[in-house]
C-alpha cells in the first residue's frame, strides 16, 4: 500500500507553497479582484518560468513530461493561494484537450507554446444559461467558419486560442474546433462575474476561421472525457482553498475575544471548524483517489473524478461560507479577505459543471461499472 505522495512530490509542494507565499499573497489576489482582471501577467510569467504550465506536456513538445501527481500538487497549492491566473483554462482544459484529441501537427503547433506559457488557451463550452448539451448547442461551423456566441468563457477576454465545442450533424452531435481568438471576425468582452479575480468573457464568433480537432461528431464524448480529467485538478484547487479557508477561520477564532475569552473556545465555533476539517479531510482523500485514477488512466476515472469533484465542491462551499460566519461582521466587509474564498469556491463549483450534474454523473458511472 502506498497512498501518499513521494518525497520528491512533497518537496515540490514545499517549493510551490514557498513560491506562492512570496509572489501570490492575498494582496496579489486583492489587486486582481479590485482591478477587475485581467490576470496577473507578471505572476503568470514567473509561474511559466517555474515550468508549471508544462508539467504533464511530453518532452517532445518541450514539456517536462512529469505525471499528474505533480500537477495535482501544483493545483492544490494554486487553490490554496487562490492564484489569479488562467492556469485551469490553459493547463487543465486546453492543454489536456490538445493532448487528447490534437493531430500531430496541432500538437506541434500549440503544445510548445502552451508549455512555455507564451500562449494562453481556453475551452469554450457554455452558451449562457443552464447545462450545455449537444441538443442545445447553437454554435455552428460551416466551411471552416464559426458562428455563434459563447459565454461565460473563462479567461476568454485575453486567451489567444480556444477549443470551441460546436454543433455537429454527425456522431454524438458535437465537434471540437481550434479557434485563434485574435481574428478580426471575433468580438469579445469581459463579463461581470462573482469572482473578478478570475476573468470571464462573452465571445461572439462571426465567421472566423476554425480548425476541426478530433473527429467530427466525436466532440461530446471528448468533452466528457476532458471534464473527467479536469474535474480531478479542479477538485485539488478546491481542497487547497478549503484548507486555507479553515486556517483563516481558525486564526481569527483564536485571536478574537468575546465575553472574555477566545471565540475558538466556544463549542459552537469549535464544532463548526471540526466539521470543516472533516469535510476537507474526506474531500482530500477522494482527491488522492482521483489523482491516482487520472495518473494511471484507470477505468475508474469517471467514478473517481466525480467523487473528488462532488466532495470538493461541498467542502469548499462549506469552508468558505462558514469562514465568513466565523469572522462575524468583519467577514462581510470588502476589507477582509474572506470574500476571496466565497467567490472562488462558487466559480470553481460551476466552471466544469455543477454539483448537481456531477452527482448525477457519479451515479451513472457507478451504474455502468456494476452493469459491466
Amino acid at each position, binding site marked *: 500500500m502506498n497512498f501518499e505522495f513521494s518525497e520528491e512530490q512533497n518537496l515540490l509542494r514545499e517549493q510551490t507553497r514557498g513560491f506562492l507565499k512570496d509572489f501570490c499573497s492575498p494582496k496579489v489576489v486583492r489587486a486582481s479582484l479590485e482591478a477587475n482582471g485581467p490576470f496577473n501577467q507578471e505572476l503568470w510569467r514567473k509561474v511559466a518560468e517555474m515550468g508549471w504550465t508544462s508539467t504533464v506536456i511530453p518532452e517532445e513538445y518541450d514539456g517536462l513530461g512529469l505525471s499528474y501527481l505533480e500537477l495535482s500538487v501544483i493545483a492544490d497549492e494554486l487553490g490554496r493561494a487562490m492564484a489569479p491566473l488562467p492556469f485551469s483554462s490553459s493547463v487543465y482544459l486546453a492543454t489536456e484537450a490538445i493532448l487528447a484529441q490534437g493531430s500531430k501537427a496541432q500538437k506541434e503547433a500549440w503544445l510548445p507554446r502552451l508549455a512555455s506559457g507564451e500562449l494562453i488557451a481556453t475551452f469554450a463550452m457554455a452558451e449562457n444559461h443552464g447545462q450545455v448539451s449537444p441538443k442545445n448547442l447553437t454554435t455552428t461551423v460551416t466551411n471552416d467558419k464559426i458562428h455563434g456566441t459563447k459565454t461565460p468563457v473563462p479567461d476568454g477576454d485575453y486567451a489567444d486560442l480556444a477549443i470551441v465545442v460546436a454543433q455537429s450533424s454527425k456522431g454524438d452531435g458535437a465537434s471540437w474546433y481550434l479557434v485563434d481568438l485574435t481574428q478580426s471576425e471575433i468580438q469579445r468582452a469581459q463579463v461581470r462575474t462573482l469572482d473578478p479575480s478570475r476573468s470571464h468573457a462573452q465571445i461572439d464568433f462571426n465567421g472566423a476561421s476554425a480548425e476541426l480537432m478530433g473527429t467530427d461528431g466525436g466532440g461530446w464524448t471528448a468533452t466528457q472525457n476532458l471534464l473527467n480529467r479536469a474535474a480531478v485538478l479542479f477538485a485539488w484547487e478546491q481542497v487547497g482553498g478549503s484548507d486555507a479557508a479553515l486556517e483563516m477561520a481558525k486564526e481569527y477564532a483564536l485571536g478574537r475575544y468575546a465575553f472574555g475569552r477566545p471565540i475558538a473556545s466556544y463549542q459552537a465555533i469549535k464544532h463548526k471548524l471540526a466539521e470543516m476539517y472533516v469535510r476537507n479531510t474526506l474531500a482530500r482523500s477522494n482527491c488522492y483517489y482521483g489523482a491516482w485514477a487520472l495518473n494511471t488512466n484507470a477505468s475508474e476515472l469517471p467514478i473517481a473524478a466525480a467523487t473528488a469533484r462532488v466532495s470538493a465542491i461541498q467542502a469548499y462551499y462549506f469552508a468558505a461560507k462558514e469562514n465568513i460566519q466565523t469572522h462575524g461582521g468583519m467577514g462581510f466587509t470588502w476589507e477582509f479577505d474572506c470574500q476571496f474564498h466565497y467567490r472562488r469556491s462558487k466559480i470553481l463549483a460551476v466552471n466544469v459543471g455543477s454539483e448537481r450534474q456531477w452527482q*448525477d454523473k*457519479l451515479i451513472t458511472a457507478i451504474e455502468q461499472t456494476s452493469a459491466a
Partner: protein
Amino acid sequence: MDFNDSKEEATFRNEAREWLVANAPTAADLNGLDDMGQAKLWQKRKADAGWACIRWPKEYGGRGANAMEQVILSQEEAKVKAPNTGFFSIGQGMAAPTMMTWASEDQKKQYLPKLASGENIWCQLFSEPAGGSDLAALRTRGVRDGDEWVVNGQKIWTSGAQYSDFGILVLRTDPNVAKHQGLSYFFLDMKSPGVEIKPIKQISGASGFNEVYFTDVRIPDAQRLGEVGQGWQVALTTLMNERASIGGGGGGAGFEQIMKLAQRLNIDDKPAIEDKQVRANLANWYVRQSGLKYTGYRSMTALSRGEIPGPENSIGKLVGAPLTQDLASFAIDLMDQAGILWSPESAELEDIFQSAYMSIPGLRIAGGTDEIMANIIAERVLGLPQDVRVDKGIPFSEVPTGN
C-alpha cells in the same frame, strides 16, 4: 501512489491467506456451538498457530507483527467465512493495551495470553450514570482497607459484562482533591462477591449493555494499574484505543445496499434510481463513504512506512454513524408505507435498514458522542482551546451536581 503491497507485505499476505483458508472452521467444526462457542473455537485455533493478536509480543501470546501486517490479516480474514470474534474486542483492543503499558511483568504473562486465546473475556467499567461524556466525574468509590480496596457504586453501559471474566475499572479513591486527581485504575474478577449485573434493554429491543452494581466488592491492591490518583492517565491509554476500535457500523447498511434498493423499488412507476433526488442523495453518501475509505488508505500508508497515522483517523465514527443513520432513514422512506416492516422475512433486503435505523443512535453516543468527537478534533487536531471549566481546581466533593 498505488494500491499494491510491498514485496514483504505480499509475502505476508500469502502466508496469512494460506493459513486462513486451510484453517477456517468448517460447518462440521461449528456444529452445535452457539455464537460464543464458535468464537472461542476460532480464537483458540488462531492463537495456537500464532495468528491471534499478532501485534503483541510473542511472550504474551502474539506474533510481534507490525501494524500493516495486522491490517492485511484483517483484510484476509474478512474474506474467509470465519466466526465473529467481536466478543474479544474490548479485552484485546482496550484492556490489553492498558495492561501492556501499566501492568507488572508477572501480570502481563498471566493475563495477556489468555486474552489472546479467547479463554478470558474482559469488559470495561468506566461510564457511570453521572459520568458519561464527563467521564472523570465518576463517583464509584474505592476505599483502601489494608491490601484491598472496598468498592461501592454503579457503572453503566458495560458491553458484555454478563459473560466477562475480568473487567477494567476506574474508581474515585479521593473525593477531596480535584476531579481528575482523585481517580485510580484497577482490574477485577467479575465473579467477585458483591458484583451484580443487570441488562439494559435498548430501543432496538436488544441488550448489548449492562448496569453493573458494586456492593462492598473487594479488589486486591495488586490489581491496581498505575499509582493511586493516577487513574485518569491510565484511563487515557484505554480511551485512545477505544476510539480507534469503534467504527461507523450499521450491520451492512451502506451505499451498495441502498443502491440495490433504489434499483429494485419504483417511484412513480419508474425505478427509484432514475429519480434525481434519489441520485443526489446516493451520490452524497457515496462520496462520504469513499472519503472514509481513502482516508483509511492514507492511514495504512503511514503504518506501512512505520509512521503513526495522523488524527485524520479519528473521523471514522463521527462520519460513519450519522451517514448510516441518514442512509437507513432514507431507505425506509424509499420503501414507502411498507418501510415500517421490521423482520427479515417481510422487509426489503432482510430488514438491514430497519435494524440499522434502530441501532445507530447508540453508535453516535458510544465511545464518545458526536459532540465529544468534534471537541477532540477541535482541540487535539486543530489546537483550539478547551471550554471554560467550572469544576477545575476545586475538590471533587465541591463540584456542583444536577440530577
